[in-house]
């Protein structure tokens, strides 16, 4: 399903969709202002962010111990803990648990981890129907869409599109209007009987507290409470990075998450449960601890911080690239800036190889991140790593892989498409340019001469704009959509010398 050209190619398709861009613009700009209001209201917001960062950083550095503690606590509270090294193992475990409960249908709370491992499709292969109960996930499920946003997975759809979907798919939806309240009412009516009768639910987890085994799900609609309270069996699939050591850590995280996510002081519902409770809620509780590439990310001391993410989506909402391309261009359940550093580390540098270039490095994501993940630094680190691996490979095949990555960079920067075959040439051109720059900057005389030559060339090119737009290869990718700057009368060095002379 992934486009061969990676992000640049997928983004080109998204950029051509005017409706999508309008939908995204409205949604991201609405939430940006609201988030700033919500975060500026707390006098200790910056201290909370730093505390959140330190909690997550220290937890990751001792993850083995916290996972073992969590396991012990959940067992002591009457739950069962399963470990899944990869997606297939997790899917197998969940399918077996559902079958053991004698069910053919499960209700699901929105969970990106289960999207990541393709749980719904894996269950369908076993004859088990998984029904998404989050409104946006339901919209995507009805449309056969994938998520395009961490928090609002159907952000790419406007109300009229959603009305059309509900009219076509929901029982009794024929006369629906596009009033959001009417659409919500229709979803409520559709899901109500499922909540009251389905014996097995599958959820994700926002946090799990090692010291008590308490699992936390943060939500708005009440579908999370329904799923974690009413069924007999509850299965929670959780990435191993979601553990926090102490209950007190929730006092930090539950301030950071809602204000960064929906810009609310607090989300409508937060459920905390510990194993099973007699006469209240599910009679059996299973916690599936998922690795699926997380230990890859953990092994990189710079990239590791991607695991601190609490999935608020603030970085998506402020990103100038996401705002224009939307989430699908990232070809991952983790889109936006966080996806650009998370996907290559979880799925492997080869799969997400163009993603670290899907950024202008403006740093808005870093400023917005409630746990201060330094996304721009990790992007640069991954770019370097991808290029380095390509070179170290030596053979032409590996160099080609690196070439495609570098080519991706040029294409994103130049907002210009190109076919797969050209990527290698562009990468070679980029490397040659870098080598040339190294030579030119290697001595003052060479540098001065190059500057003079550059001024002359630039002046000439500006007098021939048609020629400029048609420059070959990566140069053209840049100049085809930009005007060249005016050549300065003199270089800075020349100006400086003259100034020194005059002051004497």
């Amino acid at each position: 399903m992934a486009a061969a050209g990676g992000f640049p190619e997928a983004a080109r398709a998204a950029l051509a969709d005017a409706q999508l861009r309008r939908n995204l613009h409205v949604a991201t700009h609405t939430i940006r202002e609201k988030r700033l209001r919500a975060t500026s209201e707390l006098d200790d917001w910056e201290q909370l962010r730093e505390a959140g960062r330190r909690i997550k950083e220290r937890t990751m550095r001792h993850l083995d111990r916290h996972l073992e503690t969590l396991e012990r606590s959940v067992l002591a509270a009457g739950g069962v803990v399963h470990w899944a090294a990869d997606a297939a193992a997790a899917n197998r475990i969940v399918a077996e648990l559902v079958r053991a409960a004698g069910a053919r249908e499960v209700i699901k709370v929105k969970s990106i981890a289960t999207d990541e491992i393709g749980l719904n499709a894996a269950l369908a292969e076993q004859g088990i129907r998984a029904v998404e109960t989050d409104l946006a996930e339901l919209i995507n499920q009805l449309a056969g869409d994938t998520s395009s946003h961490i928090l609002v997975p159907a952000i790419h759809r406007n109300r009229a599109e959603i009305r059309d979907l509900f009219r076509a798919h929901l029982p009794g939806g024929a006369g629906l209007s596009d009033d959001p309240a009417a659409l919500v009412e229709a979803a409520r009516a559709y899901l109500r009987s499922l909540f009251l009768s389905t014996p097995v639910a599958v959820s994700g987890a926002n946090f799990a507290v090692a010291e008590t085994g308490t699992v936390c799900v943060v939500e708005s609609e009440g579908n999370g409470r329904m799923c974690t309270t009413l069924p007999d069996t509850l299965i929670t699939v959780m990435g191993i990075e979601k553990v926090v050591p102490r209950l007190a850590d929730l006092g930090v995280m539950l301030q950071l998450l809602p204000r960064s996510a929906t810009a609310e002081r607090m989300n409508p519902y937060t459920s905390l449960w510990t194993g099973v409770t007699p006469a209240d809620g599910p009679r059996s509780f299973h916690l599936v601890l998922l690795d699926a590439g997380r230990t890859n990310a953990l092994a990189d001391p710079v990239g590791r911080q991607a695991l601190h993410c609490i999935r608020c989506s603030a970085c998506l909402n402020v990103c100038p690239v996401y705002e224009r391309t939307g989430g699908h261009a990232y070809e991952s359940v983790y889109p936006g800036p966080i996806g650009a550093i998370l996907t290559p580390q979880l799925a492997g540098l080869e799969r997400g190889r163009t993603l670290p270039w899907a950024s202008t490095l403006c740093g808005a994501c870093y400023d917005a991140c409630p746990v201060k993940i330094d996304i721009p630094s990790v992007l640069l680190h991954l770019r370097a790593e991808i290029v380095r691996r390509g070179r170290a490979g030596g053979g032409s095949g590996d160099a080609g892989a690196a070439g495609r990555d570098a080519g991706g960079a040029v294409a994103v920067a130049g907002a210009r498409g190109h076919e797969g075959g050209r990527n290698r040439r562009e990468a070679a051109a980029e490397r040659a340019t870098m080598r040339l720059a190294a030579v030119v900057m290697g001595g003052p005389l060479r540098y001065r001469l190059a500057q003079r030559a550059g001024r002359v060339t630039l002046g000439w090119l500006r007098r021939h704009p048609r020629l400029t737009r048609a420059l070959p290869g990566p140069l053209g990718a840049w100049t085809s959509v930009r005007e060249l700057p005016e050549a300065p009368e003199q270089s800075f060095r020349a100006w400086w010398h003259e100034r020194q002379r005059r002051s004497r």
Partner: protein
Amino acid sequence: MSDRELILSRVRAALADVPAGEPDTWLLEADPDPVPASYVRRRVMEAEQLVELFASRCADYRANVTRCADDPEAIRSAVAAACSRHGAWALVAPATLDSAWKPDGLLFESDDPPLAVEQLDRCDGILTGCAVAIALTGTIVLDGGAGQGRRALTLVPDLHICVVRGDQLVAGVPDAFALLDGALRAGRPLTFISGPSATSDIELRRVEGVHGPRRLEVIVAA
């Protein structure tokens, strides 16, 4: 090798750069450079200020907030008024609810023995107390303790009437966790409620009333 051993060994191999002897948990009080991370762990506010802040923040989420004196008669009449606003007369109450809060003329069905979920679905509403309420965020916290009952009671009915006493109010989220520590360590499930259920899934615009109670009446008795 089991998946458990495999994951733990991968984690340990990945963390080879972490020096032995580093504390495994971050504590503000043990941090050599605490200032940048010194978030407010305890907020102190005057009682009246707490009540006013809570009432206004809770109302921001379109919960209906009323204030009354902290005595049974005042609470009873506030409950009766809330019920009449919604035309509710057949309510459910947790077995542990203070019966002095139940107004005459309304039907209260006790959840002892536990009611079927269909019965909860049919009733007009549920009346409960709470464990803690957070002023800064307008949040009610239920911990299954006295006057609250099991989680399904405040989830399935369409109307939730919740009585908050003045001495249950705290200022911020960390203050609430300090008070809830005992319930959590005892393994009791907690629900944080901030307004009626809502969604922002359509164009990031908030719509109140999805799967949880669509109407929330909060009575602040202080």
